[in-house]
């Protein structure tokens, strides 16, 4: 009798495991769906904020606020100066070769970039 029950349990076990796996996959699928919707909402919000930021940074608006609200004026020609570049500023040596830690950092950075989600 025990042997029969054991065989029956062993026979049923794969089906139970399959059902559990399908259930988990469905659960994860719903979670992914929710996250995808969240991403869409956030992307939309990001675009909206970008549009607002761009309109706030428009040169016309900045100039209008600067002159009307802050009382600023465009500088006169004699108020602007060109500063000659000092010779020391021009004396740059050849570019330094990256060290061990920098190369290692670059390697991991590349690995992370490669593993990232591909663009749509």
């Amino acid at each position: 009798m025990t042997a029969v029950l054991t065989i029956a349990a062993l026979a049923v076990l794969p089906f139970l495991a399959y059902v559990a796996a399908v259930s988990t996959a469905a659960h994860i699928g719903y979670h992914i769906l929710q996250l995808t919707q969240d991403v869409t909402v956030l992307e939309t919000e990001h675009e909206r904020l970008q549009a607002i930021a761009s309109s706030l940074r428009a040169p016309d608006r900045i100039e209008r606020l600067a002159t009307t609200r802050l009382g600023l004026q465009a500088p006169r020609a004699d108020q602007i100066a060109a500063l000659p570049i000092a010779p020391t500023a021009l004396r740059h040596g050849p570019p330094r070769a990256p060290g061990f830690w920098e190369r290692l950092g670059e390697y991991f950075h590349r690995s992370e970039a490669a593993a990232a989600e591909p663009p749509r």
Partner: protein
Amino acid sequence: MIPRARRRDSGTPPGVSRGRTTALFCAWIIVLALLVLRMIDLQVVRAGVLQRLAIRQQLGLLKLPGRRGTVVDRMGRPLIMNVEVDSVYAVPRAIGDPDAFAREVSPVVHLTPSEVQARLRRGGPYFAWLVRRQPPSVVGAVAGLRLGDAIGTLPESRRAYPAGSLAASVLGFAGVDDAGLEGLELRYDGALRATEGVEVADRDAVGRELVQTQRILTPVHDGNTLVLTLDEVIQHIAERELGRAVQDARARDGMAIVMDPHTGGILAVATLPSFDSNQYQDAPPALWKNRAIADVYEPGSTFKLFLAAAALSSGVVAPEDRFPDPGQIRINGFTIHDAERPTHTSLLTLAEIVKYSSNVGAAQVATRLGKVRFQQYIWQFGFGSPTGIDLPGEAAGIIRPVTQWLGPSLQNIAFGQGISVTPLQLLVAASALGTHGLAVQPHVVAVIRDAAGHTIDTPGNVSPHRVIEREVADRILGMMREVVRDGTGTKAQLDGYTVAGKTGTAQRPGPRGGYEPGAYVSSFVGIVPAEAPRLAILVVVDRPRGMYFGGDVAAPVFREIARQALWYLRVPPQDVRVGDAGGRVGPGDVRR
């Protein structure tokens, strides 16, 4: 008897007759047969129909909308982008009384009741757009009507132009279906347009997509990004300064183009009056076109530059040759006057004809040059054919065949009357004089990048071509410097920089032939710094009132645009030497 009793014991329970058992068995068999028949009906007879029905209910075919590409200026500042907004739809089948519905909805969606009814009829029984891409106020008001299933909203992507009217004539606009209608939106519609994707996935009982069953049939591709040569700040400077000049001169309209003379990259195109691309429907369609490339005008004295180049290149006039300028001259029965300067007592060289903008001198040079030869040079400089800029609607200009150059036409064309060019053609031709005779391909788009950021095209990467000999171009540039130093263009002088330029004052052609009395087009084309050109700028002011000479109206605009743009581009004044750390030099301190 015994066998009978034994039979009952083995077959039917006590008290149940054999007949009832048989009937029950038959009924069971009949039910089973019916079930089998039903199964055959479902699985065989109606299998196709039911399978299609099941697929429709369980399998979802989803369209994956892509995003139209964005447009940024040369520094990466967004000029065109997408924002999500709501559109309002109706479900005609769910509307009991269409008249009452139209009366209730029309004030909210800013339509008349008849328009609402027309849109309901235009749609299907279950869906009809009422208004698309509406502001939140309208969407909120629609929700406030509480009309249930009869009306609803759906999110849609809309083009946004965050800088408003800035560079509107270049950027253009896209319509409600994301199709480019004007400007760059139209010219690069194919590159900007997204490719819609398609996926199949099973749905659960409540219609949710089962991600694990998802299968992409067609991948979605977002539109490409355009990186322009345009600079938002220089564009703003050009529009502001041109706007001031148009307002001060009470002119009808104006144009200004700023270009890199070495690459042909357009840094700014200002056309006034302008419009807001976000509300393009509110502007008259006449404003939508880019008049800097689509309209032609008579260039006036700025055209003397090309006459002088042709005269020197062909060898018919030597630099030291002199021409009398008594203020007027009669040619083929017509009198030609000087427009910009009084009579000159001495004889003028070619350089002085350009410097003082002498029409009489130019007429004599043209006579010596001849019609055919002059026309060849005109073509050589690119007049009479589109420049090929990557914007829609470019005009070719009007260069009549020499057989139609009657009377004083040759002499008139010498000082830019009787010939029509686009502002861009003139700027490209003039900029070639600043780059040793090499003409560039003007362009607005520097790079096209795909959604992943990879460069897929560089439309403006075209090698310059020679339009005039290097020596001739350099000599004409020298004449242009004299125009600004001591000629008709002194108001274009810029402290710290050497400016080369030419003024133009042309009469406006009348609608019935001839010229309109008192109507002028004032212009100035210039290159700065003359030694190592960074900017080529053309300013055109149409119908100024009061002062109308190009040197008075357009040259100061050139100066202001050049001054601010050079500082913005960090082009130091010529008196600041690299390595000279001894002092601090401002434009007010350096020599004139």
